[in-house]
């Protein structure tokens, strides 16, 4: 599968958020989208998912324009995993996961045995079949995120868009969720997630995409494109990047205070 964005522009009222963003992504990859708050990450996702109408430019999903898909068809191509949230009503996990089958059921239909098995299979893939009878709203944030990922698998879409899946998760759960996402990308899914932690990109992503002021600044292998200079300009604090000799992985750390970075000086 392929997701191609060309010259995407979007404005809220008169305030432009996306300015000619362009990129192409293919399946079998985990992509981390980095960018400051307000850089246009969420807007980009919301345009791709069809939540926001009236954008300029083209979004091609498997070479078909996004506007030409119906809600149902689009749901079979792209699944969306929102930030973990507390649903107002407590649904059992298995029911929550079965909701992913809505796009393949008739308007008045409701899931039966087949859908139940699909949901169980998805829970198994993620390795959380033990949660199936728990109430979703009573789970921890990390568990909720995994349930939503299982639901996306039930939806049978091959492109997964995740809006800061690791926000508000503890360190262990962040790693658990990231590992699951990576293993899905290795099964052929195209996993696109936004994150505020460059480490996620260094450790898990095949590609990192950095958005600045509504544009795609860079897109490429994280260890190559996420340079000290770029991260410093992005976050406007001093950052040092080290290489772990043992594993060859890159790590980033906060640099010295008061150090000049980009055009800014951080004074605390």
């Amino acid at each position, binding site marked *: 599968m392929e997701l191609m964005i060309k010259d995407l522009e979007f404005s809220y009222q008169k305030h432009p958020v996306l300015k000619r963003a362009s990129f192409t992504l293919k399946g079998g990859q985990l992509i981390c989208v980095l960018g400051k708050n307000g850089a246009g990450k969420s807007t980009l996702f919301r345009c791709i998912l069809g939540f926001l109408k009236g954008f300029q430019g083209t979004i091609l999903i498997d070479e078909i324009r996004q506007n030409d898909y119906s809600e149902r068809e689009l749901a079979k191509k792209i699944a969306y995993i929102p930030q973990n949230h507390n649903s107002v009503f407590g649904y059992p996990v298995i029911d929550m996961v079965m909701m992913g089958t809505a796009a393949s059921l008739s308007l008045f*239909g409701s899931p039966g045995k087949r859908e139940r098995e699909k949901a169980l299979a998805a829970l198994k893939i993620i390795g959380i079949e033990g949660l199936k*009878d728990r109430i979703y709203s009573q789970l921890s944030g990390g568990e909720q995120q995994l349930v939503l990922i299982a639901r996306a698998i039930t939806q049978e879409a091959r492109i997964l868009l995740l809006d800061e899946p690791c926000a508000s998760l503890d360190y262990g759960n962040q790693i658990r969720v990231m590992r699951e996402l990576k293993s899905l990308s290795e099964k052929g899914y195209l996993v696109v997630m936004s994150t505020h932690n460059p480490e996620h990109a260094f450790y898990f992503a095949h590609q990192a995409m950095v958005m600045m002021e509504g544009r795609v600044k860079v897109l490429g292998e994280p260890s190559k494109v996420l340079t000290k200079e770029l991260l410093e300009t992005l976050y406007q604090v001093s950052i040092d990047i080290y290489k772990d000799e043992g594993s060859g992985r890159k790590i980033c750390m906060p640099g010295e205070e008061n150090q000049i970075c980009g055009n800014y000086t951080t004074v605390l």
Partner: protein
Amino acid sequence: MEDREKRYNNRLFIIGGFFVVCFFCSFLLGRYPVYPATLVKVLLSRFFPIEVTWPSQVETVIFNVRLPRVLMAALIGAGLSFAGAAYQGIFKNPMVSPDVLGASSGAGFGAALGLFLSFGYGGVSLCAFIFGLSAVGIVCIVSSRVPYNQVLGLVLSGIMVSSLANAAVSFIKLVADPTNTLPVITYWLMGSLASIRQKDVFFAAPWILFGIIPIYLLRWRINILSLGDEEARSMGIHTGRLRLAVVLGATLITSASVSVSGLIGWVGLVVPHLARMLVGSDYRRLLPASLLLGGSFLLIVDNVARLITTSEIPIGILTAFVGAPFFLYLILKEGNRL
């Protein structure tokens, strides 16, 4: 757990049984005594040739007085709870009642206007029904022009239209003749089933049933919509159309109910909570449970209304007396789950 589903299904079954008991007992209660055996015989005599051993008044009481009232109480209670449950889902808010979009206030204004202009009995009902629908219609049109957050737009314009309708009712009360029209309007707005006759059943029942159908058919999808618009859309749900279908159904139910009974509050807010506690949040079970519990609830309250004192208490007052403390209890006990 399979266990939990079984338990919920059993409870749904018990709720159904409870409703049937409430329904039949309601025929027996009242100033004129009707004995269970007589009731069964009278009801069966409509279908089978049974020797008449009872005075003819019994038949009049059962068919002309109690039957319309019992049917209407059951239908209105069921309908309002059903609509309330559906609204709580589509607005992702358990504090919502079926009149949030102005159906009741609109209908109240319609009725007040009808009474002020001394329309006949049927005219008042029709006027109430039409104004109830129009109020929600206006709310839908206004909110469709709200950019981005449509749900918030709906709720806020609902509050505004309700306030306008209430202001209009106050104005009518102010200018109404204080010796006869004003008390009639005031009494009507309190909500009562005392004056329900057969023709009210024929007027309101089809609309209530007609409103229930689309919501019931879409019941599983309401679960998904209750997670939020964007999430539901990403799963392939046409959220706008689904919400419109539910709003339309719930508005028919609420307007039709209010147009024959006056304002009966709290049922649509409290009963869905009770149902949720008993059978869980899944709308596939919650909606039938709300129907049955709501019907039973209003039957019981209506029986109390006609038995407790010699002159009837308007049922709207009683539902508030029962509903508000119960809701307080819910907040104290399950505040975190509301």
